[in-house]
């Protein structure tokens, strides 16, 4: 093939995410954030059309994930990182402070994207803001 193109499973995941009202993040197998939908833009405070893809080192600093006691959470324990590393679903409950500086209580469900012929295509995370 002459040109780079996302795999069809990833393209369809983006199209599904674009149609849903909950924030969704899609990362590739290296952890690069390759897409986030409009509801996720509200959390990030950044528009995907403006940022494009973001390496893990970049997007991980956009959030400040903290636990209930206010202690910072290391990237290794975040659901998206677990789904990507261990190829299994993961769920978490924590707080984040996005670029808009608002502290949000969120639950996150992440799952690996495994394509046809067991191809590792990355992972997806769904964010739910907890109304307290």
């Amino acid at each position, binding site marked *: 093939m002459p040109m780079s193109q996302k795999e069809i499973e990833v393209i369809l995941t983006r199209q599904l995410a674009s149609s849903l009202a909950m924030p969704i993040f899609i990362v590739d197998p290296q952890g690069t954030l390759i897409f986030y939908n409009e509801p996720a833009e509200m959390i990030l405070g950044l528009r995907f059309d403006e940022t494009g893809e973001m390496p893990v080192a970049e997007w991980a600093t956009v959030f400040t994930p903290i636990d209930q006691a206010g202690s910072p959470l290391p990237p290794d324990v975040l659901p998206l990182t677990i789904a990507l590393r261990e190829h299994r679903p993961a769920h978490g409950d924590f707080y984040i402070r996005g670029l808009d500086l608002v502290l949000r209580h969120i639950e996150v469900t992440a799952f690996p994207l495994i*394509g046809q012929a067991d191809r590792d295509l990355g992972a997806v995370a769904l964010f739910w803001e907890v109304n307290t």
Partner: protein
Amino acid sequence: MHVALWGTRGSLGSPGAETTHYGGNTSCVEARGTEGTVLVLDAGTGIRRLGVALPRSLRRVDILLTHLHMDHIQGLGFFAPLYNPEVEVHIWGPASTTLNLRNRLMRYLSPPLFPVRLRELPCHLVLHEVPCGDFDIGEFRISSMLIGHPGPTVGYRITTSRATLAYMPDHEPALGVQQFPLSREWTSGYAVAAGVDLLIHDAQYSSEEYPSYIGWGHSSLVHALAFATLAEVKQFVPFHHDPAHTDEDLDRLIAEAAAVARPAFSITPGVEGAVFDLGSGG
């Protein structure tokens, strides 16, 4: 590369007075190399006549299935080389997540749907699962890639030293896209079609019909033209015509869409019996 269209209809064989020009046979395209290698793209009902027309001296033929929907395999059991013990028939096609290609084909090539079982075919049959990276058949280099259509479906990019053909008879790249197309990187099938000399692509619906069939895995003619434009192809063949579209309908739909799109490439309607000689212009 010699390319011949033996079946251009989608979904269901549609013979009749109103389809005599575009044809009623379902998807089947022959690609023949200058050294005599024969590829058969899909095994719709058009494959029966192709099987009869092949030279009796042919000792190997490769059938490249895009997917296993009925209109793309229905003619398989009527392909004469399958019954010739002196011929090597290679079938390339996608497995599913739970069944290999052999088991998927056996669902059709076994009673009660068909009287002859796959294992009873007299030819020397070899099955290959795609996508599997680039591979060579004779003078052809072939790439396959999963594309947007319900169930495992691939598009094929077929290259010789002088020409490239892309074949995507069932493809809905506009699914879920608010303003089609997105960028090249995020468009299903782009890598298959990029810059080819000839793109044979799904154009089943009119723009008025498409909203009623979103998610069925097919393109409107307007979407297909937008896809071909994005891919910067040199020639485009609208293919997989809806069974309900008459010759008159297709003439009108293609003329109207071409007049609006005014593409930089040529449009050649997918008519059964049409032939293309690619890369012969020096």
